[in-house]
């Protein structure tokens, strides 16, 4: 029988051009990894059709143990305060291998 361990999945929808800025932040915030998907969409700032570099969206997914959530959200909030548009939402997920999410990107590289 597979045991499940509760974690938090932080989702961030933002611009493709901010990818490097975000991943640099993840390295500083001790998360163990991230996954990025290309997206398009629309919201308060209009349509982002995704055909030109400057209006393509990405959906970023970061799984963290509950105790790292606060720090990550604070980091994201600071980016928002600076004017970067991030659409952030958090979900509960269960993982099968909690050791994977305890480490940090920095220690890997």
């Amino acid at each position: 029988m597979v045991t499940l361990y509760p974690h938090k999945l932080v989702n961030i929808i933002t611009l493709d051009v901010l990818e490097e800025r975000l991943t640099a932040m993840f390295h500083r915030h001790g998360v163990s990894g991230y996954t990025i998907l290309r997206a398009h969409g629309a919201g308060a700032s209009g349509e982002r059709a995704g055909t030109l570099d400057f209006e393509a969206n990405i959906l970023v997914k970061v799984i963290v143990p509950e105790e790292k959530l606060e720090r990550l959200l604070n980091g994201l909030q600071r980016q928002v305060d600076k004017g970067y548009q991030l659409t952030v939402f958090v979900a509960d997920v269960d993982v099968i291998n909690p050791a994977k999410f305890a480490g940090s990107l920095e220690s890997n590289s």
Partner: protein
Amino acid sequence: MSSFSNLLIPAVLFFALGAIARIIKSDLRFPPDLAKVLSIYLLMAIGLHGGYELAKADLGTAINAIVWALILGFSMPIVGYLVLIMTRKVSPMDAAAISAHYGSVSAGTFLTAIAFLDSSGVEYESYPLIMLAVMESPAIIVGLLLAAWARKQIAAGNTAGGVSVDDLDNDASKSNFSHLLKDAFTNGSVVVLIGSMVIGAISQPSGIEKIKPFIDDIFMGVLCLFLFEMGMEAARRIKEFKKVGAVLGVFGVVMPLAGGFVGALVGHEMLGFSVGGTTLVAVLGASASYIAVPPAMRLAVPEANPSFYLTLSLGITFPFNVLIGIPLYYWFATYLAGG
């Protein structure tokens, strides 16, 4: 041929077809990565071609052209910024971001001008090409400086927000202003263009000969495909005209006219170019970037509203230059040459 027959050049017609496809709400969609691939190809091809020509060119004139490219690239955003601030229609941050686009250049517009000259049988120098490469970066830098200055003004009365140097949370590779400068020079478009120029200049002629069919023969066709897509993008942006307002809309036409006028004077008076070369320098002055600068501004001036700079550069100035500006600058260059 009449200077308005540019409307019968395939490249211009495909631009119009793209706009029409969008206006009649066609379901035609180009894949997300196509514009990127096409623009890498176009930059690579013009870089190689230009580098090859420049290797045979006169060093003095080349340096002169580079100096004037720098002067244009640094001064035009400042002028644009002051004008925009005077209109009182946009915030200082928006003014900084918008004007950076006008100091920079649009390779798509430049190439359409070359197609126009080619089909009119007008000769042109290869120096404007190196000016194109040189002008990508200064405007970005000026834009960043203007935004930093505006941000400081705002911060004087308001401590919240903004990219400030002492912000603890900032990524070391981003927060620092010197790194923003570095970004301006390692910009993808700049690397492809300047890298290809160097390769074109130093490669063995036999090697260049082997890649000629790729960079020369199919070039115009690829440009047509690129402008086809850009026509769709421009038309999508022009719909947002109402958000931008009439005053800014006028700026989107007057700024390229002024830039084209100044550029033509520089080309003719300062650089002594032929009618063709003068037209190209005018186009450099007149055109606004919509490939390299928008992502740079998104990153470095997040406080600015992208609707403004995108609608102006892509939705108004770009079609204006392609359809009306180019023959106009050509006419003006002819006038200068005859005067």
